[in-house]
Each structure stands twice: as structure tokens, then as C-alpha cells.
């Protein structure tokens, strides 16, 4: 059976302040995979996601989502930014942040109503944050804040999820909770793309992986390509990870 391609990246080149961060990236992400993007610091992992989502303008290259340009397929895509990218002292509640996930489908001016609130509450329930819905966001722990971000993406009810380091600075319970939700998403046929730091957990969490270090080193199923050879190519030093069978 031919697998559908969810995200296709062609010859993408991005420069940040005119310093090249990504070079000529070609990437095809099949539908329904749970993919990790790994690479050393400064390898352009976050940049890749941001360029795909149109937050950064590439110098060259194109991105298509289910064979159409990204701009036309926004509703199919949800995004979980890095937790550190926002001001958590902002005067708003957990529920309010999750409601923001509905703003895209509402479009300009229209206000969220009962339907949107219900969706947001359901998403909060899914991430186990319903009891905290009225909490001011600065009063949440790092793990809880990450769950709020995840809930906000879930509300978007997308087909493809992009997540930027969702496991950074979270407690063990949250990490398990998040990975369970990601696996559930995959089971429902969604595509999930995660910028990931912890190489040890790659084989356990993901079924697809992309090695990135300014250039794309390799991409494919974890069982085929997650090996010392590719790790060394990506991280530059003799890298060995004990993969448990």
C-alpha cells in the first residue's frame, strides 16, 4: 500500500540574520508517523519547523502539506512552540490559552462561543489539566505549562502536529502523559513531528526519525536508520547509543 505524504519539503534553505541555518533540505514525511527531529544544538531543528510553518521566510525552497501549499492547508496543521518562547506572567488563565487554539478556525473578529469553550475543556481533560483550568498560567509548573500548550494544539483538531521540544523541562509524569497522547494521535492516523533532544528515548517513543545538522543527514524508520553511523554523521563525534531491543 502506498503511503500518503503528509509533509513535503523541497530544497529548503533558511538563513537567520544571514547566517545559514538550513541548507537545501529535502524531506518527505509520510502520513501517520510519529517522527523525531534530532541533531546537535544549532543544527536548525526549530528553524526547520518554523520555516515549514511560515514563521520564518526561507531564502529558497517550498513546502507542501498534502500536496498543496501550506497557506491553503493551515487548518490541517497545529503547532506547539517552545515553552520558553512566551511570557508566562501574561495575565490569562489556562483555559484562555487553550481557547486560543480555536482562534484560527474562527478567523478575524469572530469571538469564541460555547462550542469553542467545550472543545477547550475537552482538550484540558485529555491532558489531565481540567482541575487547573482557571489557574493563572504563571502558577503552573513547567510540566503543566507544557500540557497547556499541548492542549491548545489538540483543540485545533489538525492532521499534522508540529512540536518544538515538548519534553524540555518537564517532570517524568508529564513526559509519560505527553508521549501517551502523541501515540494516541498516531493511532488516530495523525502525523506528529517532534523536535527532540534526548537520543536515549528515540527508539522507545518514535517510529520515524530525521537526523539534521544544517543539512539533512538521514530520514526514515527508526529501526532502519537510527544507528551509530548516522549519529556520528550528525553529531560529528564518535557517537554510540545503546539501543535496547
Amino acid at each position, binding site marked *: 500500500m502506498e503511503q500518503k505524504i503528509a509533509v513535503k519539503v523541497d530544497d529548503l534553505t533558511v538563513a537567520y540574520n544571514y547566517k545559514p541555518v538550513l541548507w537545501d533540505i529535502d524531506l518527505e514525511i509520510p502520513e501517520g508517523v510519529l517522527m523525531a527531529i534530532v541533531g546537535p544544538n544549532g543544527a536548525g531543528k526549530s528553524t526547520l519547523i518554523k520555516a515549514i*510553518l*511560515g514563521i520564518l521566510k526561507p531564502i529558497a525552497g517550498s513546502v507542501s502539506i498534502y500536496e498543496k501549499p501550506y497557506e491553503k492547508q*493551515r487548518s490541517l496543521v497545529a503547532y506547539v512552540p517552545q515553552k520558553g*518562547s512566551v511570557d508566562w506572567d501574561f495575565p490569562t488563565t489556562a483555559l484562555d490559552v487553550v481557547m486560543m487554539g480555536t*482562534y484560527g478556525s*474562527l*478567523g*478575524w473578529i469572530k*469571538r469564541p462561543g460555547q462550542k469553542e469553550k467545550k472543545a477547550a475543556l475537552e482538550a484540558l481533560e485529555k491532558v489531565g489539566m481540567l482541575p487547573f483550568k482557571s489557574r493563572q498560567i504563571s502558577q503552573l509548573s513547567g510540566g503543566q505549562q507544557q500540557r497547556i500548550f499541548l492542549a491548545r494544539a489538540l483543540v485545533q483538531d489538525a492532521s499534522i502536529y508540529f512540536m518544538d521540544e515538548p519534553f524540555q523541562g518537564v517532570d517524568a509524569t508529564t513526559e509519560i502523559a505527553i508521549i501517551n497522547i502523541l501515540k494516541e494521535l498516531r493511532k488516530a492516523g495523525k502525523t506528529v513531528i517532534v523536535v527532540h533532544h534526548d537520543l536515549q528515548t528515540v527508539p522507545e517513543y518514535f517510529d520515524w526519525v530525521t537526523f539534521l545538522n544544517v543539512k539533512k543527514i538521514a530520514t526514515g524508520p527508526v529501526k532502519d536508520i537510527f544507528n551509530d553511523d548516522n549519529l556520528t554523521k550528525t553529531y560529528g563525534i564518535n557517537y554510540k547509543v545503546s539501543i535496547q531491543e
Partner: protein
Amino acid sequence: MDLQEYFSLVFSDYTLRTITLGTAILGAVTGMLGSFAVLRKQSLLGDAISHAALPGIAIAFLITGAKDSNTLLLGALVSGLLGTFWIRGIITKTHLKSDTALGLILSLFFGFGMLLLTFIQKQPNANQAGLDKYLFGQAATLVESDVWLMAIVTGLCLFVLLLFWKEFKILLFDKDYAKTLGFNTKTIDILITSFIVLAIVLGLQTVGVVLMSAMLLAPAAAARQWTNSLSKMVFLAAVFGAFSGVFGTAISSSQNNLSTGPVIVLVASVFVVFSFIFSPSRGLLFRQIRFIANRRDLEQQKTLAFMYHIAETHDNISHPHTIKILNNFQGFTRKTLQKLVDKEYVMLDGTMWSLTQKGFDKASNLYNQQAKEDE
């Protein structure tokens, strides 16, 4: 005129009513928009914009020769916007940082404005009197048409704010995310900035170039302490701003030789100090109280835990011990011991203490909880 007289006159006296209404509306609109400036970490932008507006006033006067405040404000608006965009240009296109860009535009535009003002003052024909009111503001020169203009702008601002509330909020909180949802963040950004510039320019006549930034910041900073909701914060900031305007006007008109601008700013600053200290959730006072209470609880628990460990070694938990052995323990004070007695965890008999059954259960509970959390 004393304060009482002021409040009895404010409804009947035309001038007083105009001024009070003007400062109140100004306070409300700057408070409202100031909330956005504060949350976007652009607090000092207001200071730069208000200073940058000065040459615009002078140039508008040089061109038209008119003292009509609307013409001058138009000049101020153009010049303020120019300054704002130049600041952006400096930050995005050079390696100079935002603080340098702000300081540059602020001082350079202001100095140029002063050059023009002194130049105008030396002109023989000019009826320039009144131009320097823009330095420190003169609420007394407000006339009904000025107040109408303020009211219209405030109404417009309120309308736009309500219309694009959702967009403003998401831009303020998470700009990148807003972009992925398909919102044109540049448009929202320009909309907010333009309104902030407009509000500043409106306030120049009343509060003046030098102190205008405080009108933006102070009500918003005070409001932030009382609420964790953006809408309530904006509303409260407007209320604080309006009250600062009214009280400031009242105080300055009840005294001789007091210009309105500095008094309004001081009233607003009092709001800030009060909020910093007395806000129940964030304020310094309650934070300190909570801190002390927490420490006391901790000390009590520590003492109790220590007693528990001693009592554990005896068959009879209520076996008495001397108080002395507690002394070398950190959490212990006479006071905490008394508190434990009050709670019937401990019985005192002269210089001896003993744990009650209740105290023992409590301590073992605490101990188990701790062990659980450590796992």
C-alpha cells in the same frame, strides 16, 4: 480653593469641568493602551514617542503659523510615528540594541524640537506663546473641542479594541503561534502601535512631553497587580488612569503654583506603590506574610518531626523529655512549642514535654507523606 470647594465646583464651573473631563478621559485611554505597551515589553517606547513628537509640533507651527491645537497635534502624530518607525529601523537593520535606539530617538528628536522652539521664540511676528506648554503640559488650556477630540479618539480606540480583542490578545501572548493560525500579525502590530502613538500625542497638551510615558505605564503596572485577566487589567488600568486624572486635577487646582501634569503622574505613582504593596495575590506585604507563615509552619513541622523521632524510641510515646534536648534543634523556639501545645500535639509539664497521641499520629502522617513525596 480647597479640595471640597473643587468637588462642589466641578459640576457647575465650565473650565473646571472641561479640564477634569479631559484629564479623566486621557487617563482612561492611556491606561487602556498602556496595558498593551507594558505587556509587549515596550514600556519605554512611550517615552521615546512623546519626546519624538516635539519637533512635529514646532514644524506644524512653522508651516501653518496656527496655534490651533489640532494642527499641532497632527504634526506631533506624524513626527511621533516617524520616530517609532526609525526606532524599528535601527533595531532591525543595525546591530544597535533597542535601548540605544530608544535613547537616540528620544534625545535627538527632542533636542531638534527644542532648537526649533527656541528658533520660533526669537521670531518677531510669532504669537508663539503657548508652544512650551507641550513640554510639561497645561491642563488649564484644555477647551471643549480638545475634550471632544479625546472622547472621539477614546471611543474609536474602544471600538477597535473590542472588535479585535481576540487578535490583540493572541498577538501579545504568542506572536509566532498567531502567525501559524493565519493572522496577519504585522497588521495587528501596526494597529496597536498607531493607537499608542495617537494616545500619547493626545496627552501632550495636558501632561507634556516629559511625563507622558508615566501616563501609559503607571495605571497599567498598578492594574496588573490586581488581576490575572487581560480584560480586567485593561479595564482597571482605564479606571486607575481616569482617577489619576481627576484626583491630579483636583489637587493641582486646589493649590497654587502646581502644574497638573506632575501631580497626575504622582497620583498615578501612588496607585502603583499601593498596588505593589497591598495587592492580595502579588503584593509585597502579603507575599511577606505568606513567607513568614510558611516558615513558621515548617518550623513547627520540623520540631514535631524531631519529637516524633525521639518518642519513637520509647514504648510509651508520651514518655516525658526535657525541653533542653530540643534547644540544639533549628526549628525550635518557645513560640513554636507553645503553638504545638495549643494544638494539643504536645503536653508541657514544667521543663518536661511529652507527645500526645494526637501529636504522634499527626507527626507520623507528616513523615509518611514526606517519604511518599521523596519517592
